[in-house]
């Protein structure tokens, strides 16, 4: 019964999404107020239906209902309860349902948030979200229904992919998707503005908190994915430039450009059409990401749910959504002329360069991700693009970006009098260089040519970001959340840059064959292998090694890396053991039984690698602080008439 109820709720949700889209767009366009008023009930109804559907699927997973094909393929009666719940989004169909459900959550939040905005505009925003939701629901019901029955029912399920049986999986996809889907809100705001043919600074103020919130979720989602890959998948790597990783990173880069461009539109009424274009681009890349991940067109560690026929539908949907939005843009953008000008040394210039560099970075990542696909379809040979391409091209835009940030953060709006801040810039730079040199040559020694440069840039960002808040506190000025949030996010970025530098420069890695009682040295650490023992878990068995870690002879820890074999899929997973010591991660992973009593073991020492994820979380925290600034809440209480142009408050 439950699966049928869930299926039926999905169909109702699709109909309500269609109504929401139709009333939201046609109502304001034709001036029919009763249509416009019907949008909010449709949103509420759709949400209830989606929630019912999700609840039915989870309940069926918990019940071990293997008469449902999706559950038979992705669960098992021996699977612990926690993973039976998270298995709901363990494969294609369920994760799509999660995607749509999260869109429903965003839509409800937006419906509450825009209730104080002009009614036509609010209806248009919700209407566009309805169209997006309708498209995805249609896709799901047509090609990837998770509620399809299996006749006769399977005696037991084929189990959840063992590499997904991990606590981080429980939170990584929902948070990542919340970020992905959140850009649909910025997209909807942009489309609504274009449908109205009017866009002002108030529009930017309405849009900013939503976009920043989506960006923060996406940051956390990507960081969690990277962390999960680090300890579960990747044998100690944190980023592989894998197509699926790139798919989430491209919207992040464009989204970062968007939140900066929105700041200019908000404060100065500039970059209007550019902001609209970025809103469309960010969401398009989210859709492209879904397409890349879900169609299996690219070789990827994540493509365990590959199916090219589904790709065609997504491609058509992508063309309709993006093509439609871009057509609207071409029609409406010429109306949006920005009046004001700015100096070369003004904050606007720096934010312009920030945007250009971020978009270049996104374009190089896009090029590298799509090149294998294009080459293959044109019969130019099967090629692969990896780290040797991505690392240098990405740094090419990131190094100037980070340097410009530390200078531009002191610039004022409109007037380019950077000379006022020359002293601050020079002092912060000197401190940064000194710290970086001590770190690179004193603490870790050696490194590559770029190590001191990149370390300087990282430290410089951290110091420069703190100057303004500290100055405000000393002068007892107000310290609004937007300022604090910006400083926090930039400190997070600085930590991230610093961490990537130390990890890329000073990581030590060795694969060694060790017999019982044998010892090896990696960097300052000694590792003594004490042999392996058999272990048995809830739905797997395996072996557990024992390795004694010492540093210059002083005991640090005893670690137990595991090698598991899951019963149902007979798949082997490696559970590395990771210990933090003096800021470095000491990573030990058990390899294969080499015979003659020896095992292969991988050892890695990665300095400050935890700062990488911590930096990303702090960036997201900054976003969360900034998104809850009072001025956005104030803005919502102001209904028409719209504030006069140039009504820019300090802060």
């Amino acid at each position, binding site marked *: 019964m439950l699966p049928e109820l869930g299926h039926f709720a999905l169909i109702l949700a699709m109909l309500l999404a269609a109504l929401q889209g139709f009333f939201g767009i046609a109502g304001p366009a034709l001036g029919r107020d009763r249509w416009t008023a019907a949008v909010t009930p449709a949103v509420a109804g759709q949400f209830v239906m989606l929630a019912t559907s999700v609840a039915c699927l989870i309940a069926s997973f918990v019940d071990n209902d293997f008469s449902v094909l999706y559950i038979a393929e992705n669960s098992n009666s021996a699977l612990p309860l926690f993973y039976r719940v998270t298995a709901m989004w363990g494969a294609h169909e369920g994760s799509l349902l999660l995607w749509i459900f999260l869109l429903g959550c965003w839509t409800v939040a937006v419906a509450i948030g825009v209730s104080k905005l002009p009614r036509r505009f609010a209806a248009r925003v919700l209407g566009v979200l309805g169209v997006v939701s309708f498209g995805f629901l249609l896709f799901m019901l047509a090609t990837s229904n998770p509620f399809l029955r299996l006749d006769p029912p399977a005696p037991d399920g084929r189990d959840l992919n063992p590499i997904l049986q991990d606590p981080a999986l429980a939170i990584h996809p929902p948070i990542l998707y919340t970020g992905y889907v959140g850009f649909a809100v910025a997209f909807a705001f942009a489309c609504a503005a274009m449908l109205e043919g009017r866009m002002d600074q108030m529009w930017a103020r309405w849009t900013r908190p939503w976009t920043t919130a989506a960006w923060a979720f996406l940051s956390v989602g990507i960081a969690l994915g990277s962390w999960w890959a680090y300890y579960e998948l990747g044998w100690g790597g944190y980023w592989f430039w894998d197509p699926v990783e790139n798919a989430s990173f491209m919207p992040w880069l464009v989204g970062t450009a968007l939140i900066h461009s929105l700041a200019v539109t908000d404060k100065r009424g500039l970059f209007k059409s550019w902001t609209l274009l970025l809103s469309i681009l960010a969401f398009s890349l989210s859709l492209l990401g879904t397409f890349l991940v879900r169609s299996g067109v690219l070789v990827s560690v994540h493509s365990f749910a590959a199916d090219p026929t589904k790709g065609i539908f997504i491609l058509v949907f992508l063309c309709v959504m993006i093509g439609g939005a871009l057509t609207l843009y071409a029609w409406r953008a010429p109306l949006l002329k920005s009046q004001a000008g700015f100096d070369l040394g003004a904050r606007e210039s720096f934010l312009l360069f920030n945007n250009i560099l971020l978009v270049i970075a996104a374009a190089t990542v896009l*090029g590298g991700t799509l090149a294998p696909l294009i080459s293959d379809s044109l019969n130019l040979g099967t090629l692969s693009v990896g780290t040797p391409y991505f690392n240098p091209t990405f740094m*090419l835009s990131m190094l100037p970006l980070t340097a410009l940030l530390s200078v531009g953060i002191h610039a004022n709006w409109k007037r380019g009098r950077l000379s006022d801040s020359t002293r601050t810039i020079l002092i912060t730079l000197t401190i940064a260089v000194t710290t970086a040199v001590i770190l690179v040559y004193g603490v870790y020694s050696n490194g590559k040519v770029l190590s001191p440069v990149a370390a300087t840039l990282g430290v410089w960002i951290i110091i420069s970001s703190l100057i303004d808040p500290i100055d405000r506190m000393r002068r007892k000025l107000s310290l609004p959340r937007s300022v604090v949030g910006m400083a926090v996010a930039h400190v997070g970025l600085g930590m991230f840059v610093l961490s990537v530098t130390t990890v890329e420069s000073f990581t030590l890695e060795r694969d060694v064959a060790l017999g019982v009682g044998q010892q090896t040295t990696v960097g300052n650490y000694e590792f003594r292998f004490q042999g392996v023992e058999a272990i048995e878990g809830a739905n797997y068995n395996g072996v557990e090694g024992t390795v004694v870690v010492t540093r210059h002879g002083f005991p640090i820890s005893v670690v137990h890396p595991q090698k598991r074999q899951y019963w149902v899929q007979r798949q082997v997973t490696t559970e590395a053991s990771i210990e933090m010591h003096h800021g470095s991660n000491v990573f030990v992973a058990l390899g294969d039984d080499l015979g003659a009593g020896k095992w292969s073991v991988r050892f890695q020492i990665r300095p400050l690698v935890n700062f990488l994820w911590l930096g990303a979380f702090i960036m997201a925290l900054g976003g969360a602080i900034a998104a809850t600034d009072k001025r956005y809440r104030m803005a919502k209480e102001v209904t028409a008439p719209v504030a006069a142009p140039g009504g820019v408050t300090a802060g």
Partner: protein
Amino acid sequence: MTPRRKRMTLVFGIVAGVSVAGALALNAFRQNVTFFFDPTAVTAGQVKDGQRFRLGGMVTKGSVKRDPGSLEVHFVVTDLKNEIPVTYTGVLPDLFREGQGVVAHGRMSGNTFVADEVLAKHDEKYMPPEVAKSLKKHQGETAAAPAPGAT
């Protein structure tokens, strides 16, 4: 400078910057892209001397050998028509198995492929698309004769 001159300078600077970035990216792309070849393409001499490439195919059953206690492992990669012996020193991925698809990065040294990275990042149902394509192609060609290694 007049505002107009200033704006032109800005625009010129941006265009120049974007072009330089584009040129450098293209250059990095040309130098760092790796091509995929199957054993038949390697046997036919399509690989340039010393070129780094990705070799893909199926690990021939019964071909995985290692000296006890050594990190060095030998195996044979087949596309059901031709075979290439592979040497690799290090820890093999969890999903590496005989009779399964594999992709290795490395160079030819004589008649042996010396791998510096071995990838088998897929589950049991899944085969890397390029490997699946290559196997399908050669399976068709050798349909009459029993496929080597596919016993």
